């Protein structure tokens, strides 16, 4: 009986230690690695290229924040102010790899944090962070949601200017 009591006490203590080590409802920074931790964008004369087609966020939940770096390189001969925007008209249902994701509601789109854009000199590269922060205590809108973030190389004011842009899908799976 003495042994049993000792074992039970140890278990209790161990559990208490585990509980005390549990991180508090985490404002989690995303984990990422290798080539998949940035979206590389290259702005060329008359063109634009993206080296990623989608950003995948897994295990998202109320109170969490997920970020992705958009690394934009200016391969033109002039300074540009690129544009990063929410392409709210894009419907993820049209994306062949949506895998059940539903279109983000205006409420979800309001959680997106777009960066303040800056000039990028010719030949230079700058990082811009796009984030989504789901407020605490909010009910998850769906198991999986999707939206599109667009990037354009910058606009000018000449008449009837034609520009190009690329979009990256964000696919967010909820915990």
């Amino acid at each position, binding site marked *: *009986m*003495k042994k*049993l*009591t000792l074992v*039970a*006490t140890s278990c*209790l203590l161990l*559990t208490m230690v*585990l*509980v005390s080590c*549990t991180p508090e409802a*985490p404002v*989690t920074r*995303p*984990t*990422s690695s290798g*080539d*998949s*931790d*940035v979206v590389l964008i290259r702005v*060329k004369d*008359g*063109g*634009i*290229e*993206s*080296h*990623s*087609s*989608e*950003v*995948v*966020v*897994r*295990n998202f*939940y109320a109170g*969490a924040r997920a970020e*992705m770096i958009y690394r934009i390189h200016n391969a033109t001969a002039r300074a540009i102010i690129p544009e990063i925007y929410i392409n709210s*008209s*894009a419907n993820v249902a*049209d*994306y*062949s790899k949506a895998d059940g994701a539903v279109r983000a509601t205006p409420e979800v789109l309001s959680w997106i944090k777009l960066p303040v854009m800056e000039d990028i000199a010719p030949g230079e590269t700058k990082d811009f962070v796009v984030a989504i922060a789901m407020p605490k205590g909010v009910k998850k809108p769906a198991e999986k949601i999707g939206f*599109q973030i*667009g990037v*354009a190389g910058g*606009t000018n*004011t*000449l*008449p*009837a*200017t*034609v*520009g*190009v*842009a*690329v*979009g*990256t*899908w964000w696919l967010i799976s909820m915990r």
Partner: protein
Amino acid sequence: MKKLFLSLVLGLLLVLVVASPALALTTADVAVTATPAYVTISCNQTVYNFAVVAASSTPSTTTAWATITNGSTVQTDQTIGVTTATWAGGVTWTHSDTNTPGENTAGMVTNRGGTWGVSDVIIKYDTPNYIYENCPASTGYSFGLKLYAPTSFTDGVEKSITVRVSAAAG
């Protein structure tokens, strides 16, 4: 001793019950990854000037005026739209998303290398239309622009608006 043992076991159970939701929360962190794929388009035209336009006129380029070079390695959906709801300059023009010209209200359509009036696509501000849905990898195309000028103007100041072709994995 028996009582002590019982209370310890009960305490352990209670802690486990309380602890389990907290432990579940931390089973995995949020993971964010970018999926590698190459999406790229470029356009050989950057500017078109319709010059002086008459009220209710419909000047246009050819339907092969601009060429989109698409070097994407994946299928893409490509949209065409304008980036603002109005045409800038002097008394601004409203851009009509239904291509219905009016007083200081203009519309615009595009055609992808075909014949004007056949399968024209309205160039909208809100919810841009597809110019090429399910565009295969490495497949380019041409397009033109057609203006539907306002039925009347307030001033003769030059107006401008930006047309944007956007590509995303489809």
